């Protein structure tokens, strides 16, 4: 396609790339544009045929309803507490476990590793009943700690898996040099291995926060009291509470989406960036 003798980067023709990129952007963004537009429409404008693209009298009424006349703000706080708590816990546990798996040999390691992975495989619906009974025995139903712990099921296995491969990719010679210099295992982990695996840590944090923020089924079953209910449940509840008040539902959706989008965009550079390539290829 391009002249091979110049060794210039070959690629798709630019027009195709541009059109493709525009299409991808449109597909990814359109539902959110429609969500945002719907959230500032009045009821009569929502229920018209044909639908109108831009409201003549944009209103914040739906947001007012969501922020001042519903439980959404409380659910928002609950979601923040539970997501931050379980992300932090998963990260700590995963760092140690991954380091153990990546750097040591011990009896039963393959078995234990697959045990961790199988956790990810469990049909969540399948263990709800026994989990509920377990939580009740521990007095953790309808508490923050209950959901934070339960979320280890969905965040920990993948976190361990991701971090193990990151740790493995770090040349063991770096650590051996530190051992010769008299560093302890923990010192090595925190001063050498962790800083080198920043993209992995960021990936785990973003992954754990996003999955717990978005989680639906466990929250539906283990947090039935409005003092601990999370946003996804609030949103589902909202649509029944107001029946089909789509304007309010869309406004609540915007409120729920914003923080996660902000987090993601601020972390995106670290999360997606080619830091891994730099750290592993050297």
């Amino acid at each position, binding site marked *: 396609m391009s002249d091979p003798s110049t060794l210039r980067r*070959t690629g798709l023709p630019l027009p195709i790339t541009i059109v493709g990129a525009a299409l991808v952007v449109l*597909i*990814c963004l359109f539902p959110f544009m429609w969500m945002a537009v719907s959230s500032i429409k009045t009821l009569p404008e929502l229920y018209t045929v044909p639908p109108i693209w831009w409201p003549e009298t944009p209103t914040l009424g739906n947001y007012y309803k969501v922020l001042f006349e519903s439980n959404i703000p409380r659910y928002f706080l609950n979601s923040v507490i539970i997501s931050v708590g379980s992300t932090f816990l998963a990260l700590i546990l995963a760092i140690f476990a991954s380091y153990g798996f990546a750097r040591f040999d011990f009896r039963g390691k393959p078995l234990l590793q697959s045990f961790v992975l199988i956790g990810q495989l469990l*049909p969540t619906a399948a263990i709800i*009943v026994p989990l509920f009974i377990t939580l009740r025995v521990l007095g953790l139903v309808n508490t923050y700690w209950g959901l934070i712990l339960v979320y280890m099921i969905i965040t920990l296995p993948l976190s361990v898996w991701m971090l193990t491969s990151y740790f493995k990719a770090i040349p063991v010679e770096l650590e051996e040099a530190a051992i010769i210099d008299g560093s302890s295992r923990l010192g090595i982990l925190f001063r050498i291995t962790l800083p080198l695996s920043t993209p992995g840590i960021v990936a785990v944090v973003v992954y754990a926060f996003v999955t717990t923020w978005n989680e639906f089924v466990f929250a539906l079953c283990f947090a039935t009291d409005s003092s601990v209910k999370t946003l996804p449940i609030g949103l589902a509840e909202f649509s029944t509470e107001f029946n089909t008040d789509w304007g309010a539902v869309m406004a609540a959706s915007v409120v729920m989406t914003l923080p996660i989008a902000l987090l993601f965009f601020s972390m995106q550079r670290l999360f*997606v960036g080619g830091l891994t390539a730099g750290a592993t290829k050297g």
Partner: protein
Amino acid sequence: MDRNSTGLVFVLPALIVLAMLIAYPVAYTGLLSVTDRQGAFVGLTNFKAVLSARATPQAFWNTIWFVGGSIVFQVLLGTATAILLNQSFFGRGIVRSITLIPWVVPGIVAATTWAWMFHTEFGIINYMMTGSGIIPEPIGWLTNGNTVMPVLIAINVWKLFPFVAIMVLAGLQSIPNDLYEAARVDGANFWQEVRFIMIPQVRSVIVAVTLLLVIWGLNSITIIYAITRGGPANRTLITPIQIFRLAFESTQFNQAAALSVIFFAVALVIVIIYIRALASAPGEAK
């Protein structure tokens, strides 16, 4: 011997938490599946009851359809998007970020927004499609038994193809430049680069991602539950939702446990076959 125990110490806290949250409930599920409400041993009665229910085979095939259909399009679309986003063009960074949004957004938000867009009377999709003449009259996308599953698959693909794209893109970025340079010296064009460099180099990424997609697919409840709850007429009933319904709507905990055991076994077999097939494959791939 020293290294032996040190490693175990590192791993132990996570293992204890997982054992408490996974091993115990799994064992308890097994126990529930062979007992009745009073806890008396009843053998395979629950399994027989579940297997003879009409919804069970239907849910099984729905699950296969939903998961299989989703994965094929997620991987194809995701890989294509990754290759596209690996090109250099103005604004690439922002496009990459935007691509991730569907994956990041809560499933319940995606579900409600798409449900609103697919609304029969006031939905934007029916409006656009009738307006442009693609369909003669509005379709009840989510109430028509023939369209509801494809629509849910499409929503699920939209939700997860960005994940495939970003993982494959990371793989593409770690391909050493020498490979491209060597290919260019040989006069390779773009499609040859895709076929002989990119795809083989990211093969392992795609394999791992597909395994994750299988597992997530088998676990996915949110989108279907939020939009249709398995309806209309069980057309979108997948096994996880059937288990949930058995347990929490019919309060048949023991039958739900039996179905969970069957589901878990089938899922395990699928994953093992997949891993086995891959363990033998790399020889043929370049």
